């Protein structure tokens, strides 16, 4: 049995969570305040994931904030940055518009703001 200590990143509380692991199997999660923390901890010990937030360039030269609409595997972060850095989009863009469909299977890159 292995014990892993984590700090939850789901919200600003930053709970100190302890996860008990038996191989790949999560035996217990303690220290979290809410269900989000439990979910985070279970995922974090097996395959850590993060929502990626960055920008893409609009054709008019301005920057558009974007994010992945679901968390992506942490190990893919720099791969994703490289792919996103090549993207240029044309106005008009509405908040929530898909900028890159299936950046990773089932995960889209979406706009966080209107383009003008």
């Amino acid at each position, binding site marked *: 049995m292995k014990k892993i200590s*984590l*700090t*939850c*990143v*789901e*919200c*600003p509380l*930053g709970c100190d969570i302890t996860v008990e692991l038996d191989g790949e199997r999560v035996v217990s999660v303690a220290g979290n305040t809410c269900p989000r923390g439990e979910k985070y901890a279970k995922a974090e010990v097996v395959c850590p994931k*993060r*929502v990626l*937030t*960055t*920008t893409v*360039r609009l054709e008019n*030269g*301005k*920057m558009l*904030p974007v*994010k992945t609409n679901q968390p992506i595997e*942490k190990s893919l*972060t*720099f791969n994703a*940055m490289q792919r996103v850095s090549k993207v240029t989009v044309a106005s008009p863009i509405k*908040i929530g518009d898909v900028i890159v469909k299936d950046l990773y299977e089932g995960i889209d890159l979406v706009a*966080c*703001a*209107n383009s003008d």
Partner: protein
Amino acid sequence: MKNYDIVIIGGGPAGLAAAVSAYDNGVKSILILERDECLGGILNQCIHNGFGLTRFKESMTGPEYAYKFIEEVQKRGIEVSLNTTVLSLTKDKVVTAINSQEGVTLIKAKAVILAMGCRERSRGALNVAGARVAGIYSAGTAQKYVNVKGYLPGKDVVILGSGDIGLIMARRMTLEGAKVHAVCEIMPHSSGLKRNIVQCLNDFDIPLYLSHTITRIDGDKRVTGVEISAVDSDKKPIKGSEKYIKCDTVLFSVGLIPENELSKEAGIRLSPKTKGAEVYQNRETDVSGIFACGNVLQVHDLVDFVSEESELAGKSASEYVLNGEAEKNAINCIAGANLSYVLPQRIDKNAGGSVTLFFRTSGVFKNCKITVQDGQKTLLEIKKRVAVPGEMERVNLTEDKIKSIVGELTVGLEEGV
């Protein structure tokens, strides 16, 4: 001279929430003055997520959070003047503003809401020794360069201060291809949120040097390196602990100060502790009809709390416009042992309703007790497992308790309980 019922100075999260709330409480003649080319304030450059969890129960980016409120302002048809800088404000609530379309305009308001936000402390405020060369930015300036202008201001970075903006920028610069060599924090603990230490530093193996500071910046035209040193318990650099880091960029993330130049000019009394106005529980300053909310009043940890406070100020301003000035029966509210400040600084007993007191502790305390006292009499005691200066605390006082107060209110923290 133009006339409005309520003029709001600042179109960031505070101004937007105050405008919507004032409108919904019955005042329709509202003008928001914003000096930037768009609404949303600092949220526009805060492209990371984690906003809105308290208020909307979802994790949003800064621009998404701002948009929620911009939409509400637009739906109500609230008037906005963009690219407009306020030059002065008087006690009689006359605002002088300037923009390139109308030149200088005078605007007379029945009530004014101050929502100007805060500014970053700069290198100058810290007196860091060394060359005054290119490559030195506040973390927020670097954030604007990267996220709004699309320009990476450096490749090898050292960050002084572990405030949240510094941590966020450590990650952001790393993602964009820069190498962040160190984050130095003069205190033995980080002033940023724990989650940001994890997801901005640990995720990218960026070292955090606690009890360290920059003791010299080198460079000719551009930064070429910094010397960092460990500090003792008095924050004095320890000789022999110096370490040299080659870099081309230094970011400062060393605190925020409410921007109150206009408030000072209007003769509004400011608190030396918060650097914001002293207010009653409805967020009215000592100048009748001028209200303040958001980071211009007290620097908040979360934008969700800025919105909450600003809605209160918007409601209060609308009541002032609709009902006129109310006669107050004010008592002082003072920060006692181990607290750096309490807000509101004054409580109007005539106002009715409960009052939430906001405060920060002056240090890290474990197993402590928050006490609210009316002279010698204890009104309220709340036990806390942990209290840290980085997290704003609050306690609620019921209307009955407020009514019972005869002297001055003191909020304090007792250790070891």
